[in-house]
């Protein structure tokens, strides 16, 4: 048995730690690539409403509205466009610091986990690119005909991850939240960082940087 490796989970937030692009951008891009022009216009109007909601602090409501714009989209389209979005907008613009941390954790023997409140169809290609085997992300609910209902499958992961929902999802992969190390960049990542054994703020936004300093969390970048 190898006693030098550390098999605990290393949790990486896609949004912020690895990619600068917010989740709503992906939802908007998908909606603007709907099959029919009418659906694209509807998607556009949803985002005209979702934007101010998100800015006003109603992130969950904004997310609901944004994802609802994908109602009727086929599973094929979600998968193919999700992959295309990941390839064109995420993989090429991954944060160097974040990627380096992934490599360090891999070298240390951690089990790598990609956390995202984006759709799994977008998070998985990024995980594949980074060699991350576990992805915890939102899943679009599909109807019997394989078309998106516009609602995310419960339990929905919001911008703030952590707590029992995340712990339960990790336990499906035989991983523990309590003993994990986690990397986050936004203030909304603070519940996640607060719930793990080894939190780390990566190129944090000012509010998280202040919190990290107060709580004596390591800061990278």
């Amino acid at each position, binding site marked *: 048995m190898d006693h030098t490796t550390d098999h605990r989970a290393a949790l990486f937030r896609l949004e912020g730690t690895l990619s600068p692009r917010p989740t709503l951008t992906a939802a908007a891009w998908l909606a603007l*690539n709907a*099959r*029919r022009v009418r659906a694209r216009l509807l998607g556009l109007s949803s985002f005209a409403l979702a934007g101010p909601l998100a800015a006003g602090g109603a992130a969950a409501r904004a997310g609901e509205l944004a994802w609802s714009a994908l109602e009727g989209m*086929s599973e*094929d*389209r979600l*998968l*193919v*466009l999700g992959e*295309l979005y990941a390839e064109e907008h995420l993989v090429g613009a991954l944060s160097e610091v974040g990627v380096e941390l992934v490599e360090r954790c891999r070298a240390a023997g951690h089990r790598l986990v990609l956390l995202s409140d984006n759709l799994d169809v977008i998070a998985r290609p990024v995980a594949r690119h980074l060699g991350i085997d576990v992805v915890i992300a939102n899943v679009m609910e599909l109807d019997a005909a394989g078309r998106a209902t516009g609602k995310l499958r419960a339990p929905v992961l919001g911008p703030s991850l952590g707590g029992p929902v995340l712990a339960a999802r990790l336990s499906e992969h035989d991983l523990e939240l309590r003993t994990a190390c986690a990397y986050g960049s936004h203030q909304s990542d603070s519940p996640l960082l607060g719930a793990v054994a080894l939190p780390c703020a990566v190129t944090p936004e000012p509010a998280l940087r202040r919190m990290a300093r107060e709580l004596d969390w390591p800061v990278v970048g």
Partner: protein
Amino acid sequence: MTIREAYEGRHLLVTGFTGFLGKVWVAFLLERVPDVGKITLLVRPRRGETAAARVRAIFERSPALRPLRERHGARLLELVRDKIEVLEGDARDPLFGVEPAVLAQLAPQIDAVVHCAGITDFSPDPIQALDVNVLGALHAADVAARTPDKRLIHVSTCFVAGETDGAVAETLTEGVSPNGTRFDVDAEMLAVRSACAAIDEREGGGKRSAARRGRVELGTKRAQALGWPNLYTFSKGLAEHALARREDVRLTLIRPSIVECARSFPFPGWNEGLNTSGPIVWMCRGYAWKVPMRADNTFDVVPVDTVARGMTLAVGDALADRAAPIWQLASGDDNRFTFDRALDLTALKVRRGYTPSGVNALERALLTHLDSTALEQGADQSVLLPAAAKATRWLRDTLRRFDGNKHLPESVPARDRERWHARAQETSLKLNKTSRLLESIEALWKSYQPFIHDHDYRFSTRAVRDRTAALDASERAALGWDLETLCWRTYWMDVEIPGLDKWSLPLLRGKDAPEDEPVDLGGDPPSVAAALLPRAAAHGSAEHAPSDLGGAE
């Protein structure tokens, strides 16, 4: 008895080897059932090429035979000499045009006749369709009747179901057409032949294009009166009914649906000729924004190697004298694919960079963002294409009539007038091409309409599924029906579209499909006629080669 045991040491007489399915099936059989005794290929000579030379060329360079070439390398000739022999003949001729003496020696050795030859064009000349598809099948039965066990396996099509909807069982009610009309095959053939002869006489000869058009129109009307949408399904349907009356053969019918690119054998994507999906994909990749299809109808596509698997089971069971009488090889009842999904996946493939070559950046951006969707109206209801064709023709004629000297004011210098005149003529020529393209697209959609719009078929595939379930694990993996494991998204985007692009669409652009680098076989395959008769007496020398049948075989 396993399927492989059923083939062991058996001798098959196969027609249609030079066609898409025939080639793949024979190659599949040689690869997966290597203990098959012998396969005699009935091939007609063409364009100065003997049958043996045609077979040799296929073994040397057809991509369908690539796995065999790779596996056997320099010993391919050994395999061919051991397993293959060529019989020169023509399915349209009684007893395939084979010398009675040759047939008398060959027939007792044959365990089964597998008849794959046929015309697959939707609107062939009715006389040719009857000759090849109906008489050819009856000639195959005549040959099978002379073999000891009288086994005939006839490859038909699922679309003999004609103008019906919903579930289509693996059955045949002899003498009753798809719309329930009682009919007699001989009377139908005689009526079509007589009417065609009258048209030829009226038009001043059968070779005139007006006569051909008249014959096709007449034949199509007769087909539709009985509930078959076109001459292809009519002739294949008549053949089934004609064979069902034959009590001197033990008949197995195989009905594939739309046979498309290989899933894995000979290799992913291989296709030959212009099959149903090719023109659809070609148009959806371009500016066909609205397509006259019914979105939720079944697009009953089956990869050619999946059909080869089903055929192998059906022929194997026929050899073991336990075959179900009819085997439908389709996808709609087991793993259904719809036109809407095909359009969506084609658009997504375009989005992934699959756009026509030679388009500028603006066109490319437009093409990648205009996704084709179903129009729901049939092509006969569409106003867009006819209007576009009419407008193009009007513009073409207007520009053709344009005369710089006459229509431009005198103040315009003579050189400019000439320049404008030349430009107008040039544009008119381009518009002529465009209007012809629009007309052919309109004609194509109309010919496809019964299958992509009017009817939604669910062909039962119980025979092949039940047989596969009864196979042991090793035979199931190598020979069993594998459609339920097909992922349409992967197949359509990564196999079918690239396959069509490489092997079929060049034909639409007037180019040849690529062939493999030829491997010298070192000699012709053995010929039955040469072995049994003095060469001069053998039937079917190049001088007597029949005219080209286009889609035959």
